[in-house]
């Protein structure tokens, strides 16, 4: 039909009366790296959840690789890998088991799978901890394992929702280098969110800015900076949204997340 690998049209999500995502449309070309930026509570995660079949849109449509995510769920699920914003590992399993089970669920053949697991675990520097239970891992180690897992089945599209949260600067760099490399080598499409402006600036070919559920700007980092007469992308973001990209005050979304986190540590 067309050559966009992600095609979003008039996408809306309401939670009761609250409109979290409000009639957004955009397309992503195969092989593109797109940063999806917005302040806390803007609707980024809600959008990604609709793109990845976890939430059913209230209205509008999403097509991944030309398959509709609502009517062709299994097909679309095959096309992407994802790193969720919130934790999603099985703490009672070992690191290796988490990857192994993922590979089996995605139908990756055994001999390919085991090689791939080793390669990815070495890349995220967890190979020597492969038989440790995930509950003994630090936050950063868990994050790295989730990134490895998302790539295990060679997805065509890789969604990353704040993938670098909890990672030290060196690891963040390392991870982005790998992802960009993968994008060049295998032409994987990357769609990510982040609250680190320098990641968007360095990695993204295009930025989509969302605020209050509406897309308010789209363009290359340079274009956005020029359009708003700003010196830096950070300043441009501030002008668009009225928020610094890393809101230091505790927003309701953060408070909610902290509460959920507390639950988890029971």
């Amino acid at each position: 039909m067309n050559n966009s690998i992600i095609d979003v049209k008039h996408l809306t999500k309401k939670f009761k009366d609250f409109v979290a995502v409000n009639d957004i449309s955009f397309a992503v070309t195969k092989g593109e790296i797109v940063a999806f930026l917005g302040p806390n509570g803007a609707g980024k995660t809600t959008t990604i959840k609709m793109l990845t079949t976890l939430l059913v849109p209230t209205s509008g449509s999403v097509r991944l690789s030309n398959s509709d995510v609502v009517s062709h769920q299994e097909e679309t699920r095959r096309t992407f890998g994802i790193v969720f914003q919130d934790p999603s590992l099985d703490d009672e399993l070992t690191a290796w088991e988490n990857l192994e089970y993922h590979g089996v669920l995605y139908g990756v053949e055994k001999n390919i799978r085991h090689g791939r697991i080793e390669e990815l675990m070495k890349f995220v520097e967890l190979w020597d901890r492969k038989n440790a239970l995930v509950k003994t891992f630090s936050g950063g180690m868990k994050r790295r394992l989730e990134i490895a897992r998302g790539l295990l089945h060679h997805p065509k599209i890789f969604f990353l929702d704040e993938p670098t949260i909890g990672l030290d600067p060196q690891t963040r760099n390392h991870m982005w280098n790998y992802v960009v490399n993968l994008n060049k080598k295998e032409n994987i499409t990357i769609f990510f969110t982040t609250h680190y402006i320098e990641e968007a600036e360095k990695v993204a070919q295009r930025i989509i800015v969302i605020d209050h559920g509406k897309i308010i700007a789209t363009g290359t980092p340079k274009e956005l900076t020029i359009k708003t007469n700003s010196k830096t992308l950070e300043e441009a973001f501030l002008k668009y949204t009225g928020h610094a990209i890393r809101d230091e005050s505790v927003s309701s979304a953060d408070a909610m997340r902290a509460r959920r986190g507390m639950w988890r540590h029971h």
Partner: protein
Amino acid sequence: MSAIYILWLRQLKRYLRSRSRIIGSLGQPVLFLVALGFGFGPTFQKAGQGNYIQFLVPGIVAMSVLFTALFSGIEIIWDRQFGFLKEILVAPVSRMEIMIGRTIGGATVAMIQGTIVFAISFLAGFRPPSAGNLAFAFVFMFLTAVLFTALGTAIASKLEDMQGFQLIMNFLIMPLFFLSGALFPVDSLPGVLKMVVAINPLSYGVDGMRGALGGITHFGLSTDFAVLSIMAVVILAVGSYLFSKIQL
């Protein structure tokens, strides 16, 4: 198929790694077996009903299977809260496979518990007529385990928190257990109670196991088998549907 296998394996591993769960859930069945078995045994025998331990053991095994199977539904809620459910739900596998994998996993765990209770009951003097009888009883144990794991899982797929699940389980488990003929013969019950027992799926599991072990069956083994199988399939189908509706 491999998705079902891997979901099964995951549950089994998690179970084997939590020894406190294994030991903890044996307390109740053993207590019932000892207290009721030795407490009511003499009276039961005097009333000409035969050996009470022989009668009671299938009921107690069914009870431990019921508890473990229903409660394994709580793992869905854990997975929801710890986040692993997202990983399962975005995987390119049918919701039916997910439901079956989880059910077979939970049912296997319930069968292990049931087997341990069987083993303990040997110490209390229980003897099956033959090894073949015991194997036959396992068929009914399996069906019971599948049915109630599917039920617990289906219920849990609609719930967000443990308290709600616990509440529903407390509400369900006692009536299911006490009105199943696990502890007393159904034949001598008043008509209304007999009807209640007849609509309780656990009754067919207890009856099937008891019959398979050489005891008297109330419904007949083929009825037991048919009712358990049909109900298990229906609940699995409902559960698959509910899984396809989960949003996170």
